[in-house]
């Protein structure tokens, strides 16, 4: 579900939609979501001073609030 959510947000923001890939690393208490986008689109998912990236993180943790799991977002370059 986290994968779907991050993928949807990223694809809505970038130009090169096909270059978006999301990879989940599931641990016992926490999940790491790795997001990869085209090099030219990185700014679009991070934003000025990381504002967009932080908004995605807030939305991720709001989404995970129900399950109580800790979710971390990492943007790979």
């Amino acid at each position, binding site marked *: 579900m986290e994968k779907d959510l991050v993928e*949807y*947000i990223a694809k809505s923001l970038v130009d090169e939609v096909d270059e978006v890939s999301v990879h989940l690393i599931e641990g016992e208490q926490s999940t790491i979501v790795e997001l990869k986008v085209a090099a030219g689109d990185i700014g679009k998912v991070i934003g000025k001073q990381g504002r967009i990236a932080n908004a995605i993180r807030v939305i991720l943790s709001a989404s995970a609030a129900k399950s109580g799991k800790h979710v971390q977002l990492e943007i790979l370059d």
Partner: protein
Amino acid sequence: MIREFEGKNEQEAIAKAMEELQVELDEFDVEVVEGSKRGLFKKGNVRIRVRLEDENSDYEEKIITFVETLLEKMGYPSTVKVNYRDNAKLGLEIVSDDSAIIIGRKGKNLDAIQLLVNVYGGQLNMGTKIVVDSENYRLRHEENLVKLAFSSAEQVKRSGRSRLLEPMNPFERRLVHTALNTMEGVTTKSEGEGLYKQVRISIDDELPPLRKK
């Protein structure tokens, strides 16, 4: 979309168009199709043709779908409605059983959703700001901020000591500054760096305190 309206004069025809289509004056193009000037004894009649940009509703639909899909993928299926629209703003209302989580602590989640919608919307239509709300949170929050500003200012006046409010975003700070702008005896100033600064309310010493004669 093209529609025609009739009235005694151009203004009346335009007013009719605005009433029926629920739009503002600057949202459509008007063309006078047939007009006769009002004579001394004769009532004039004007027919206008109104051209409305379909783009607008298309844009709104895309925005609403985006927010609804986002919320659904977050695990909180909701309905999104248009709350209000004017030339530069589109107000959206999220109706959901999970509105408490959707709003979040101090509106944190609502702000994150709003930021993403605005980034998404910015690609479609430059210049429209989208305001996302749920359960009237923003209105209540604004009222509370103004109340807080007034009560803090009263305390400053009573104690003579300045007070530093919690960090706020530019919009919130502006509310505080404007609320206390007309209040005599205190001044406000923002302190700190970055987006979230703090407002300090202090005694205004430039003006001598008012004395009763």
